[in-house]
């Protein structure tokens, strides 16, 4: 029962904030509304017993990506009172395409949490993932490689951002 309530709460939060992000005239407010959507998705991950994914969602999407979006907005010239029609059209197109793409899957899906026994069993995934990271024949090397990839991403991104553009102010 609690899960059902939580599901509807997160569903309302996700869709409501997504609509707000879509319909708001101010892009900055849209970005803040996106926070609710991303947190709602994290709630769904919790309900699906994917706690590592939920943690990552909060940390990276609600934390990092959103900051990046906001800073990206700060870098662009201010846009207010933008026409909403185009955005709505794009949203309808994306949702429609998604619905078409997943129609077969969705039709075959069992919507009433038939897998509940499976979901109730695991006591979180973080420990298993951590143990897999430690095993030499498993994910140890990819784990280390991830840091190299992150390093390359960091250096590359900073290098590109550092190129000087003609500055207009101060």
């Amino acid at each position, binding site marked *: 029962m609690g899960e059902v309530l939580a599901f509807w709460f997160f569903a309302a939060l996700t869709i409501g904030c997504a609509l707000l992000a879509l319909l708001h005239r101010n892009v900055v407010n849209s970005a803040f509304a996106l926070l609710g959507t991303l947190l709602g998705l994290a709630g769904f991950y919790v309900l699906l017993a994917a*706690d590592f994914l939920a943690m990552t969602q909060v940390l990276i999407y609600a934390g990092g990506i959103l900051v990046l979006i906001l*800073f990206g907005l700060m870098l662009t010239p201010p846009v207010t009172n933008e026409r909403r029609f185009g955005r709505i059209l794009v949203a309808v197109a994306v949702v429609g395409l998604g619905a078409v793409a997943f129609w077969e899957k969705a039709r075959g899906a069992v919507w009433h949490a038939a897998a509940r026994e499976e979901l109730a069993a695991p006591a979180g995934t973080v420990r298993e993932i951590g143990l897999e*990271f430690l095993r030499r024949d498993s994910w140890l090397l990819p*784990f280390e490689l991830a840091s190299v990839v992150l*390093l390359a991403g960091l250096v590359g*991104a900073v290098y590109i951002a550092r190129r000087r553009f003609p500055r207009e102010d101060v």
Partner: protein
Amino acid sequence: MYFDYANVLVFLLAGMAFVVINLVLGALIRPTRRDRAGLEPYECGEDVIGSAWFRFDIRYYTVAMVYLVFAVEVAFLFPWARVLKEALRAEDIGGVALLEGLLFIAILLLGLAYVWVKGDLSWVRSFRRGTPRGHDKEV
């Protein structure tokens, strides 16, 4: 397992309650004098010129990207930290576990050293032409 999230919920509710209670308390206690100066963003400081929304410096973005990379690092280290104590007790993989995590952090520290040395983290820097990058004199 949902019980584990009770503390998350408590944190969330406590955080929200803190904000709401303080706002309500402030509204009840504070005097309401609506004069022009009191409604300005900087009540006793500079006069505001123009909108707060102008094109900010690209360095904000650089800092945000550095932050994002280290957030991803934390996401990777989180499961590792979760089992580290357990692994250290297990003896056979304890050393590997510790070295693995330290190497992971060390590799990313190279990235931090890079942006630090190149001066991307220092806020005040000159933009004079001719000075080699990263060796700008701080003003």
